[in-house]
């Protein structure tokens, strides 16, 4: 295995163009994933492109109309960042990714690029209409819904690097709920992220809701999102129906059966809306 450790994004992109490499930022997933596929000496392993020395990729920045999360920004950076209530769900997810020791090294962008169906950051990125800054032969901005293309698959090509995620700043509050087999340090059975805007009378103006761990890639709930505007927020939990989740395709696995996942997702959507209808309890 060869290991590249460039100091600039341009160098990293040149390496990416000329070699078959797996990019690495916080490195908290690459080792367990590889250990699971036998030892590191496995000749099928790709070479590694370590991005951790590229200073320009660090930090979370408020850019007026959007917040930019650099490719090396960690979950702890996110928890500590001063962000509006729209980001509360994202911060809740940050606190559920492993323990603090993993939150201190694991990155938001890395979690997205791994594109695990159970990636805790992903439903939030969908609900927040995040966009991915992809650098490479054809630099582009890809909306989250187009970025997550399937099971551990993304729109980031073999010669591309995700430099940052941009999240548009809007009114409203975000929330995130996750079900695991225990409270902490656990992979999700099902999870829900929501971003809701309400008017002065407490009626829903817009709703963006996404479910994770219930399909090959996390996805939004367009039927429910269309049903909610106009309704009082306090009535919202009762408006959630099984048909709003009918397009999800949960699987049976070691953590839960498909039927349990579907039932859990339905309950979690209601819980997320109920939580949002209560006075804001800020986290982090």
């Amino acid at each position, binding site marked *: 295995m060869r*290991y590249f450790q460039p100091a600039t994004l341009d160098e990293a992109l040149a*390496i990416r163009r000329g*070699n078959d490499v797996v990019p690495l930022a916080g490195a908290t997933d690459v*080792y367990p994933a590889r250990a699971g596929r036998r030892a590191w000496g496995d000749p099928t392993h790709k*070479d590694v492109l370590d991005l951790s020395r590229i200073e320009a990729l660090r930090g979370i920045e408020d850019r007026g109309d959007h917040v930019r999360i650099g490719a090396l920004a960690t979950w702890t950076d996110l928890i500590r960042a001063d962000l509006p209530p729209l980001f509360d769900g994202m911060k809740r997810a940050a606190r559920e990714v492993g323990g*603090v*020791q*993993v939150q201190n090294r694991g990155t938001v962008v890395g979690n997205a690029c791994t594109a695990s169906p159970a990636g805790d950051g992903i439903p939030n990125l969908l609900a927040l209409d995040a966009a991915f800054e992809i650098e490479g032969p054809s630099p582009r901005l890809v909306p989250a819904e187009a970025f997550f293309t399937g099971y551990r698959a993304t729109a980031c090509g073999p010669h591309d690097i995700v430099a940052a995620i941009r999240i548009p700043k809007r009114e409203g509050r975000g929330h995130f709920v996750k079900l695991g087999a225990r409270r902490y*340090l656990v992979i999700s059975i099902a999870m829900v992220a929501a971003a809701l805007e309400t008017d002065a009378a407490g009626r829903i103006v817009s709703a963006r809701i996404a479910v994770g761990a219930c399909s090959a890639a996390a996805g939004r709930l367009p039927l429910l999102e269309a049903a909610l505007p106009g309704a009082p927020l306090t009535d919202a939990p009762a408006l959630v129906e099984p048909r709003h989740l009918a397009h999800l395709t949960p699987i049976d696995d070691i953590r839960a059966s498909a039927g349990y996942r579907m039932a859990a997702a339905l309950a979690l959507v209601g819980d997320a809306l109920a939580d949002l209808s209560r006075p804001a309890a800020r986290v982090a």
Partner: protein
Amino acid sequence: MLEVDKDRARHAVQPQHAFLVTLKVNGEEHRLNVDARTTLLDALRDRLHLTGTKKGCGLGQCGACTIIVDGRRVVSCLTLAVMNQGKEITTIEGLANGALHPVQQAFIEHDAFQCGYCTPGQIMSAVGLIQEGRTRSDDEIRENMSGNLCRCGAYTNIVDAIKDAIAHGLDPREAMTQAVEAIAQDAGREA
């Protein structure tokens, strides 16, 4: 240009299988040739013979290998030695300064372990937590210690020990300073 810097400049774009790295552990610099795949944990234990840091799961789940790097607690099994070039690394061996660190003392007084295997990781994690200041309630301590598993189930006493370390004169903001000073003094003694 230092030899290490030359080496770094060369492998910025040229890939390598092995690296010459300088690891600053407990105030002392160590130069090592490591395979790129070597985790920081294995480098500490097998190359520097600092075996206080324990290897539990090797997958970032148990927290036994928790150390402090540049002021933040991390699991050393999920980071590569080559990624920690030049960073300030503190392990359990660097914590005591003649007398035990207040967190070490509190763990003993509260019997906050049984077999002891997870203890160095618990203590390093607690030192990091106290410095973060997120210890306003038992629940908050439990949440922020959730990255450290104790299969003997000493959790109740671990929370008590952490509260005691804070109550008995360990100012959260000084937890790290104290550890860093201990290291500096140790280094001074050896020099």
